[in-house]
């Protein structure tokens, strides 16, 4: 049996004590804490105990030596979790000490493999266990979530801000032009939301089928998909049914809006949106697999949403709505772009050639800064060109967030969980810029009403 690496013994030496375990003659494990010393040169561990006939360490079978550090922090849980297990033989007691020669090692240190990644790597074990349990019990035993949490997780509902911002902006631009129908506005929001959630779900289906989500062992709150299929919270059939329902709802509402507005422009925009949504992850086009996901998302959640919402209210298109869509288009694409950074290893394994897969860290962060600032240049240029109302400049107040995200992704590029804070701020950047543009439009509408 091969010995353990010197590094493992060096690690063991960092623990304050060890627990030695063996299986006694009656078949019960015995485990006893003891002081110890490591002799790295000899590849052995010298144990000072245990002492007494009741805990005599056997020399005719393998024993286990555990170094464990799990710091309980009452009221907060545990941290600094790490442990190292060694298996090998104990030799006869010499000078009151037991010599242990390890032959095999296994352990975990959350400083090297964060708990969430450790958990993710253990998902296949959970599935195996539950499959075996189902067989033993003669019924299917699956993990569950309450319906509300399951829907939130499956559809990735919190990302709906990416739809609400452009749709409300399109409605606001139309309102500034004197066109506002609240019923059609509500139906537009509903239809666009169905479409967005449908795209999220289909993205999950294709990413799971392609293996991209399974290869990703660093999912975060913002990336790595819903994982409802990987966790077996839903079956593929259930997920496809949900997706068809969402797309069906979006299509029905879209057709109603086309009928209600009699706008062929809206029909064209709707068809373009559906084609783009399907082509995003569905084969054979799979835009996101070719490094074109950001452009598809920019067009879909920028001009298509803004102009679509505008067209519902007015029946036509406008340059102002197009220009207003640019900052939100850029910033929504950057949400995807940053969220792809922690996914890049899994994406690469699944052949998903996103920009963070193709480009170096420096180039990715550089592009982020340029594009994020370009969103604000678009606002300034739109106002300077007389297309956007002057109060829209209020959106420039969000510029500091760009630098917070930029610094965060530069510092934590290779650390998925540390990157989460920057991903959150980046999502807020899109939300705040969109919200501030809406405030700008509201001010412009109110000022126009009183002058």
């Amino acid at each position, binding site marked *: 049996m091969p010995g353990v690496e010197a590094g493992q013994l060096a690690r063991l030496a960092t623990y304050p004590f060890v627990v030695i375990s063996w299986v006694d003659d009656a078949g019960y494990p015995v*485990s006893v804490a003891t002081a110890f010393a490591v002799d790295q040169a000899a590849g052995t561990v010298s144990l000072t105990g245990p002492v007494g006939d*009741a*805990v005599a360490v056997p020399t005719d079978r393998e024993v286990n030596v555990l170094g464990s550090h799990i710091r309980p922090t009452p009221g907060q*849980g545990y941290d600094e979790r790490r442990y190292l297990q060694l298996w090998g033989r104990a030799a006869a007691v010499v000078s009151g000490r037991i010599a242990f020669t390890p032959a095999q090692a296994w352990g975990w240190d959350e400083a090297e493999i964060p708990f969430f990644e450790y958990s993710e790597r253990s*998902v296949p074990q959970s599935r195996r*266990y539950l499959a075996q349990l189902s067989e033993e019990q003669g019924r299917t035993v699956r993990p569950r*979530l309450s319906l509300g949490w399951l829907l939130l997780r499956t559809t990735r509902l919190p990302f709906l801000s990416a739809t609400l911002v452009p749709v409300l902006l399109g409605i606001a631009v139309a309102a500034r032009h004197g066109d506002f129908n609240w019923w059609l506005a509500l139906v537009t929001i509903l239809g666009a939301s169905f479409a967005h959630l449908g795209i999220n779900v289909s993205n999950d289906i294709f990413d799971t089928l392609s293996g991209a989500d399974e290869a990703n062992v660093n999912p975060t709150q913002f990336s790595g998909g819903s994982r409802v299929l990987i966790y077996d919270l839903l079956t593929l059939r259930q997920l496809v049914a949900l997706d068809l329902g969402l797309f069906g709802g979006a299509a029905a509402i879209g057709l109603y809006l086309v009928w209600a507005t009699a706008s062929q422009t809206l029909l064209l925009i709707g068809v373009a949106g559906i084609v783009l949504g399907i082509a995003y992850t569905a084969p054979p086009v799979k835009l996101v697999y070719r490094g074109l996901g950001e452009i598809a998302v920019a067009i879909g959640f920028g001009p298509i949403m803004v102009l679509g919402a505008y067209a519902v209210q007015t029946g036509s298109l406008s340059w102002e709505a197009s220009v207003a869509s640019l900052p939100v288009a850029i910033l929504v694409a950057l949400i995807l772009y940053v969220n792809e950074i922690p996914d890049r290893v899994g994406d690469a394994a699944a052949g998903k050639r996103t920009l963070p897969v193709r480009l170096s860290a420096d180039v990715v962060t550089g592009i982020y800064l340029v594009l994020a600032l370009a969103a604000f240049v678009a606002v300034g240029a739109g106002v300077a060109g007389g297309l956007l109302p002057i109060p829209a400049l209020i959106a420039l107040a969000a510029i500091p967030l760009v630098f917070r995200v930029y610094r965060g992704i530069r510092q934590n590029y290779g650390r998925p969980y540390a990157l989460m804070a920057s991903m959150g701020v980046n999502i807020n950047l899109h939300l705040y810029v969109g919200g501030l543009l809406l405030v700008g439009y509201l001010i412009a509408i109110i000022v126009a009403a009183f002058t």
Partner: protein
Amino acid sequence: MGWLPDPVERLLEIALVGELTVVRSDGRPITHPLIPLYDGERILMHSSTLFSRKLEHIKRDPHVSVSLSDPIALNGMYGRATIQGTARVIEDDPHAQWERLILDLWRKKEPVIDAFLKMRVALPLFFERAVIEITPERCLFWADGDTGHAPEVMVAPRAVVA
């Protein structure tokens, strides 16, 4: 009521981490740090299905031992104990059964569990859990925590083991 001596029961009631040793399929022991709970008679530990190898080991060979050894996890108490016993895995409904069986004990020992449970949606498989119910049969106790001398050895009354 249980037969474990009072000082060992106190250790069980305080310990935020204990070491559960089980027997692997190859006959070798493996030890897992876990939070031990105690209902006055049996030791209750639990495991997520994510880290369920130990459950598979127990189902194949129910002989286990629990070691209470870390003074930090024992809030500074310096006694040490090893409890040998037989374990049973309770796993009829990994989603909810553990909550009914041990949540109150867990909450009493570590109230932060409620905050973690609110985040169940973030890590759903972590909260699919089985309970490991251990009937103590033999106890080794070092009152001063020094395992460099022989322990007190106590054995369960015959009725408990039966």
